[in-house]
């Protein structure tokens, strides 16, 4: 599942970031900002126009990502162990 498809409020875990093309600086920056395997994420708000951008809570930080940016991030919904 892609982060862009994650419903608002559902907790999920990052499952890697895909490069949209070779040497994708957006994907690299996402990794630097903490979008790495196993990191819990959540959609906390969506933009007023067309649900774009989305506001992502990762760690203690909130990042506004456009849907195309959020689509680079794979997420999985983990059943509480």
């Amino acid at each position, binding site marked *: 599942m892609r982060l862009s498809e994650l419903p608002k409020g559902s907790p999920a875990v990052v499952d890697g970031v895909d490069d949209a093309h070779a040497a994708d600086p957006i994907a690299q920056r996402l990794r630097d900002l*903490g979008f790495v395997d196993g990191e819990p994420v959540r959609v906390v708000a969506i933009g007023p126009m067309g649900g*774009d*951008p989305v506001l992502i809570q990762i760690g*203690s930080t*909130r*990042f*506004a990502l456009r849907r195309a940016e959020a689509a680079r991030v794979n997420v999985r919904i983990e059943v509480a162990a």
Partner: protein
Amino acid sequence: MSASTLKIALVGNPNCGKTALFNQLTGGRQKVANYAGVTVERKEGRFTAPSGRVLQLLDLPGTYSFEANSPDEQITRDVCAGTYPGEAPPDLIVCVADATNLRLHLRFVLEVKRLGRPVVLALNMMDTARQRGIVIDVPQLQERLGLPVVETIAVKRGGAKALIERVDGEVPAAAPAQTDDAASRADLHAQVRELLAATVTMPRATAAIDDALDRWTLHPVFGLMILAVVMFLVFQAVYSLGKPMTDLIGDGFGWMGEQAATLMSAGPLQSLVTDGLFGGIGTVLGFLPEILVLFLFIIVLEESGYLPRAAFLLDRLMLSVGLTGRSFIPLLSSFACAIPGIMGTRSIQDPRDRLATILIAPLMTCSARLPVYALLIGAFIPTRRVFGVFNLQGVVLFALYLAGILGAMAVGWVMKHIRRDKSEHALLMELPSYRLPKVRDVAIGLYERGAIFMKRLTGVILGLTVLMWFISTFPSPPAGATGPAIEYSFAGYIGRALQYVFAPIGFNWQISLALIPAFAARETAVAALATVYLVGGEASGLGQALAGQISLASALSLLVWFAYAPQCMSTLAVIRRETDSWRNVAISFGYMFVLAYAASFVVYQVARALT
């Protein structure tokens, strides 16, 4: 530089409170300039430590990573690495991290550590961290990181004491430098996790107050309503807080001019002092209060953390006209002046988004246009109440701001569709915690920006006011002349030549004449009009003089002209410098001239038909 001066570089993630810490350490003793050849701001300050040693502090641009994505991030990386030309490598790096957001900030600390330079970590916002019940085992963190860790509260008096003591002591030993490759970069996150697990307990990932506020400010409906109300209040405040102070300054300078005149014999010199110097400066300086009120709001909104929220709400809209939510902040700054606005576009990483924002920024109604708006609105628009609450003059002012914004959107939309590069560009914007702006930080910001405006004001405007006085006073009218003296001056000839170009949009020769210095700096148009209408005359006020001399249609046309007209020379110079291209300057000037002429033409012809 004495041997005892220690060069300290201050680095950190954006929103770590680095600038507040810099202000706390250096107070007002700061020097703001640019890095040679680029337009990234270089902020340097000094302070004397208790030992008597002078510490030189460099506030580097905030960055998330040394994998730089923009010019300011590159500078931070290169200065820290000691490879930036003309900048001595720092003796010590103070890395500032937000204690409430260590998951993000510690990664950068590890990146800085790998440079192999002496590093001190300042855990900032420790007060907020404690309030939120975050417990950090500082000795343990210090041991695991292998570098000195001090606690700071940048926004509290004395909150940097531990940091001052630490940097005043022995320079810590540097960790061994490590190579930077993809594998080791990926490893940084694992290290951060280990550190956090061992040293930090956090009852809750976010501040409850942020969650509560964001539910309202980011709400699809209420969020936009709050944004609209905030914007509207800002502009009403500019008019109702700034205007009375403005009148006071105008009267003060008028009185000083009269006093000066009584000390001199009648003649050209007396006329230069009263009409040229005091009249001109007083008229223009009088608008400083309105400008400062506007800056005050922009700085407070920025410091409080609201601006990125506004950018979040507006990103989709901005994107639809070929911009980005990040364009919002430079564009909002352009309401004060396009120059800091255009310079502020440096935080936009994508060159295409940046250029689009630069080209549109001058359409935002800058404060230099306020004098012209205020004069014409005061002279032609009655002070009526609309819907019982709003002042009609304020409503017209709001409409002019709106005209600029709508024009900018149209231009952005056209640019988006005619440009060749249509690829993707990132938003990736952090929404920081809400913070109560601190008086000192607001005051320093206000002072810095006010000083920039004043520097432009005194140099350019004083020169032009005197030049205007000269060309509108000489040559003197021939013996037996019947008209006002100015009709026989150089100014009269130039204005009459230009009026053929501007007649279709309702400008007489006096207005055409005032447009010449307006190109140098828009606010001088008022000084120029004051000179052409008052020199040798006995008018009691420029507004009244104008109301008697030009029609309502011409006044409206002039207002619209100033909403869209080609920007001042300084703005063009900044565009040249920021984009390194004369072509962009030509595009900018050309499209604005056409837009302004067309809009004024329509307004003038329609208004004339109706009145």
